[in-house]
């Protein structure tokens, strides 16, 4: 089955089984290894990507759902100014000791900030409730995200597609 879709604004065509998971297509076929696989069942958030602007678990997306869709992975998001600010704020807060969850958490945080430029701590915790940090460093992660929202330029956050 031939499937055409966009990944990080580039047209992609894959030919293979319609039940292959998006996480495998990204990591194996397209070598976009910033997307990680943890649990493989939508619980840990390591594999999240933006699909048509919505945060989804790529381990739960079979290839047959992909035609005409638009995927943004951490590699695509990393081209944005929002990413630079968020990464800096998270580094300043000393978040992500091991880094395995970081791509998922940065996408989830970016997605939250695109919709709500000054979220409360409870809203941040809710938005990240599908992302597990195995190092358990949630306080630093939340401190980092709040660091971004404290800056005046946080208002410029917009939906990333």
């Amino acid at each position, binding site marked *: 089955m031939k499937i055409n879709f966009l990944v990080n604004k580039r047209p992609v065509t894959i030919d293979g089984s319609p039940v292959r998971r998006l996480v495998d297509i990204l990591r194996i076929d397209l070598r976009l290894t910033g997307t990680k696989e943890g649990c493989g069942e939508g*619980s840990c958030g390591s594999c999240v990507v933006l699909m048509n602007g*919505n*945060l989804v678990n790529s381990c739960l997306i079979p290839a*047959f*759902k992909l035609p005409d869709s638009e995927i943004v992975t951490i590699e695509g998001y990393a081209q944005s100014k929002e990413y630079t600010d968020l990464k800096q704020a998270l580094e300043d807060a000393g978040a992500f000791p091991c880094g395995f969850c970081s791509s998922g958490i940065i996408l989830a945080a970016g997605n939250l900030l695109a919709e709500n430029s000054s979220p409360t701590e409870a809203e941040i915790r809710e938005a990240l409730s*599908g992302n597990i940090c195995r190092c358990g460093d949630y306080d630093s992660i939340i401190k980092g995200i709040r660091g971004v929202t404290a800056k005046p330029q946080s208002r410029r956050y917009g939906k990333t597609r």
Partner: protein
Amino acid sequence: MAKPGDLLRVLRPKSVNGLLRLYAKNPDTLIFAGGTERATRAKLASVSTESKMVIYLGKVEELSRIRRSQRYLEIGSCLPISRIVSIGRHILPLALSTALRSIANPTVRNLGTLGGNICSAIPNNDSLAPLYAIDGQLELRSVSGSRWVPISRFFPGAGETVLKKGEILFRIRIPLEEWDYQCFRKVSGSHICSHALLNFCGLARFSKGILETVRFALGGLNSTVFRSLELESRLEGKTLPLSKKEVESLLAGAGELLEPLTDSSFSSAYSIATGLRFLRWFIENIHRENR
């Protein structure tokens, strides 16, 4: 040698009529929408090793509509749960909205659908107890036509639905009634995406300290969601706060009707005790709300 999935045909109808015609011709085909239920993913893995078909519902626009009338909210069965919560923020009954927001996590709710939560026929799925309590109705469609079924009659037994071959859940009708008190509570396993082990929904309407209407439903005990019209009617017309005798009599009545699920990870005694604790908590909170 063919790899898993190479022989699989995926059909992507774009209209409900096209879908129903396809499903009528191939009634044993797996239909797939959000794909977040573990059982659906397992079925997809098994059909993909054989020369079989899957019908993908995500392109059928009519299944993702939401419509409001004066008395009802009608939700297409394939609308993602996060969209329902967001669109219905100020419209959905609070107990149902709380239940939907408690399902798995935000990324799973972006994929999972209300239709899937219902049709997987797991009695402790979070939408079911609120849908029972609010008297939700389901529209089922096939090539032969449409029929409405109250959710209380949709599950004839554990893991079963009344869907006939070639029939789909088209939309869910939510009555928009005013309630003075609504609650949803659940007990889950430690795993973030684990199904609720027990959940409870309670609704009450009262006036001048008198209970006019009470409804409650409990998922995770008995083979389908538990709701007793007889117990509810016992509370109606009672003055708040209920006396200790009235509360204990209601709990004793419920205790006689509750049966633990045999495959539950809880012990029978704990399941029933927790279900009754939910009910007691609900009754006690009606008292607080009425002060």
